[in-house]
């Protein structure tokens, strides 16, 4: 498939873009074509490479290889400023403004010279000019002289938009911005996109909202795991087909659980009651003994906060996380008294001391039980570490090796060994197989199955749907911090079906 369009209408082209981060191929020879007067949607799951691709186009980071052309000319800006000059502007997912400066100074950042005479900036003139731009994009409610720190997130995004529009871009890239915008904000953005289309310019639009994409875009490029899947044009649009293309990876599901029975034990060992945090809204659930409870959703749906609240790292604004005897979890030390273990998604920064050795990492949670009188003797440490390192088959030279020298999979095994040695009953695993090769992944799944069989309970939080479906007795899907669906293992759960609840 593809779009048959005249070559001279081609505004931008990216060929064979390749970018890797360590062992992860974020982009694997991805192509993209943007025509004049086109709004091109970019869609794919978390980690499919959308943001990587667009940030390369906007020169925020360089590609490892690949060629880009703009109106037929080679395009290879080194910095964002250069990209801006070449007519490419990007609105980021994250905040890209400076709180301490005024709105006008944010809009003209790096261009203050336009308003300066003998080294003195004419603020009045700058404010007037900025206001004109804001008025142009119909965001007059934002005043140019206001301090940006006083604006809400939506208005900050509009300021970014004004800054981009002032540069009069030929290509505007909008990376998942609409979720931050209200109806008015969206209308402002949509109108700008429509105007650019009329002026025969181009827009690359990233969104997780399929309906929004279907409504606004002229064509849709679908990425999956860093690979270009297909580009559909408007008349081929079909929500079902798009979702199928998004998730249609070959799932090697033989290393997940093969049984289709969910946990029948109804003994509650842990529960959330109406938990509210910045990103969670009224989340309640019960975890049963011997159950793997999976949480899935988009990266920003709030699921990672569930682990933090459950382990007492994050205090909920309202509601309570309680153990089987009704006690609230207040802090990690107390959660550990209740035999709860937690492995953060940010393994190297939060779950492990990478600049310490394997022995210190594995023992850290278990010193109280390694005591001989008041002392922790090297012999008892060694025995303990040897047992758990062997048990988990950690590949290492010896237990004095630094954790930072290990591979991702072995690092995760060290984190698991720490908690297995500790003897936890409830494991909270946040993205336990992130950045881990298939061999160790399979080991970790087998371990989870074994723990489940021993009557331990697991909360599995993951951005990878196949993993959640493949391992969980029950799957809970979150959307914007709320539970949007719950499924037991017996149901025929498919990724496509779950995606409906996610977006």
């Amino acid at each position, binding site marked *: 498939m593809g779009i048959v369009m005249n070559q001279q209408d081609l505004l931008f082209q990216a060929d064979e873009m390749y970018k890797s981060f360590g062992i992860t191929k974020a982009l694997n020879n991805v192509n993209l074509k943007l025509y004049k007067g086109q709004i091109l949607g970019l869609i794919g799951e978390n980690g499919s490479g959308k943001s990587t691709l667009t940030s390369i186009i906007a020169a925020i980071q360089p590609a490892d290889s690949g060629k880009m052309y703009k109106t037929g000319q080679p395009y290879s800006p080194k910095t964002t400023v250069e990209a801006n000059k070449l007519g490419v502007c990007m609105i980021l997912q994250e905040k890209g403004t400076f709180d301490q400066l005024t709105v006008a100074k944010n809009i003209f950042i790096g261009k203050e010279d336009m308003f300066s005479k003998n080294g003195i900036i004419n603020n009045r003139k700058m404010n007037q000019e900025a206001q004109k731009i804001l008025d142009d994009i119909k965001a007059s409610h934002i005043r140019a002289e206001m301090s940006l720190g006083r604006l809400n997130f939506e208005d900050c995004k509009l300021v970014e938009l004004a800054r981009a529009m002032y540069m009069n871009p030929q290509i505007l890239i909008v990376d998942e911005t609409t979720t931050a915008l209200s109806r008015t904000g969206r209308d402002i953005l949509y109108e700008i996109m429509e105007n650019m289309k009329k002026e025969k310019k181009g827009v690359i639009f990233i969104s997780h909202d399929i309906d929004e994409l279907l409504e606004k875009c002229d064509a849709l490029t679908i990425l999956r795991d860093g690979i270009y899947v297909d580009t559909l044009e408007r008349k081929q649009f079909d929500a079902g087909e798009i979702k199928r293309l998004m998730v249609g990876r070959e799932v090697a599901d033989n290393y997940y659980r093969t049984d289709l029975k969910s946990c029948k034990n109804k003994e509650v060992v842990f529960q959330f009651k109406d938990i509210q945090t910045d990103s969670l809204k009224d989340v309640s659930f019960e975890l049963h003994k011997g159950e793997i409870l999976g949480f899935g959703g988009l990266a920003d749906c709030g699921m990672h906060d569930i682990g933090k609240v459950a382990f007492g790292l994050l205090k909920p604004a309202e509601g309570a996380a309680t153990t089987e005897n009704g006690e609230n979890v207040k802090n990690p030390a107390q959660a*550990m008294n209740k035999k709860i273990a937690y492995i953060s998604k940010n393994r190297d920064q*939060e779950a492990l*001391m990478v*600049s310490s050795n394997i022995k210190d990492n594995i023992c850290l949670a278990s010193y109280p039980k390694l005591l001989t009188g*008041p*002392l922790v003797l090297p012999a008892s440490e060694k025995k303990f570490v040897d047992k758990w390192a062997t048990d988990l088959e950690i590949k290492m030279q010896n237990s004095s090796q630094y954790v930072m020298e290990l591979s991702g999979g072995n690092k995760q095994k060290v984190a698991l060994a720490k908690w297995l040695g500790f003897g936890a009953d409830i494991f909270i695993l946040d993205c336990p197989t992130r950045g881990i090769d298939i061999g160790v992944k399979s080991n970790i799944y087998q371990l989870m199955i074994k723990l489940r069989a021993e009557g331990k309970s697991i909360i599995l939080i993951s951005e990878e749907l196949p993993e959640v479906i493949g391992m969980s007795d029950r799957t809970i899907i979150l959307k914007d911090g709320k539970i949007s669906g719950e499924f037991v293992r017996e149901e025929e759960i498919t990724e496509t079906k779950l995606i409906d609840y996610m977006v």
Partner: protein
Amino acid sequence: MSADVKAVLTDVKESKKPIFSYPDFRKVFPVLGLVVVIIFFQIYTGGKVFTLKNMKAIINEGFFIMIGSVGYVFLLSQGSMDFSIGANMCVSCTAAALGAAINPLLAIPFGIGTGAIIGACNGFIHVKFKIGAFIATLAMQFILNGFVVILLNGGTLQPPLAMLKWNTMTLKFTTFLVIVILGYIVFEFTTYGKRCRAIGSCEEAARQTGVNYSVMKFLPFVVMGALAGLLGFFSLIRTGTASSHTGEELMMNVLNAALLGGIPISGGATSKYRAVVIGSLTMAFLTNGMTLMGVGTYDKQLIKGIVFLIAIAISFDRKNMTVIK
């Protein structure tokens, strides 16, 4: 690829490994430094270093540096530091003198107690108000420097002369041994020592493994303070006076000892107890040697400053260093 070629390639690969790498050098450097310092002064002073009289002088010198360093290594292992130990020793010495005026025996609790309270203030400010240890203790140093002048009313204080008799080698040597050995056991073989290093290695990982890091970060300041207070007391019975100059050199000596022992100034989990011992010895021999050579007080400071800079240049872990806490 033929076997020969492969063999050649592996040879090349193996021979690439440097015989003497930089990390190895950092390991050997402390011992090397100690040996060089001893040999240098032994030759230069014509064998005066290893005389009985001088050994006593070295122990006198090393006593203060070593005990200060024992407290300091716990702070360093967490990535903390305390700039106020010299000023703390000065204030505690004055407090001990004030206590001695009431009853000589009160000098001990007054000295140690004052030191511990000052240390607790440091810890509280650092942990509760989340002010970096660097800034908090630097400010404390200025405050104490001013405070002691007020306490002494611009002059000096003398304890009862009888107290000077307490300054015996036996008492000092016993105290010294007890503290150094106790420090070693706590640092290497207790949950507390291990958790200190865990915090120094990765604070967040320690927190996410149930380490109560507020308490853990607070305690070493108190211990350090109490030890500075103890040194204040010993300074009082050694010199027979409490003045605003008491403890002036402690900070520089202890920091230098840690660096010469091979602990990076950023501290952290790699801090070793043996580093403290070796570094303190080096500093003691260095100070003593310069005295034997007749180097003046201010020249000594200048030389120590240069040593400090060299030690930092060698031990500073530029790659893993982000910011001084």
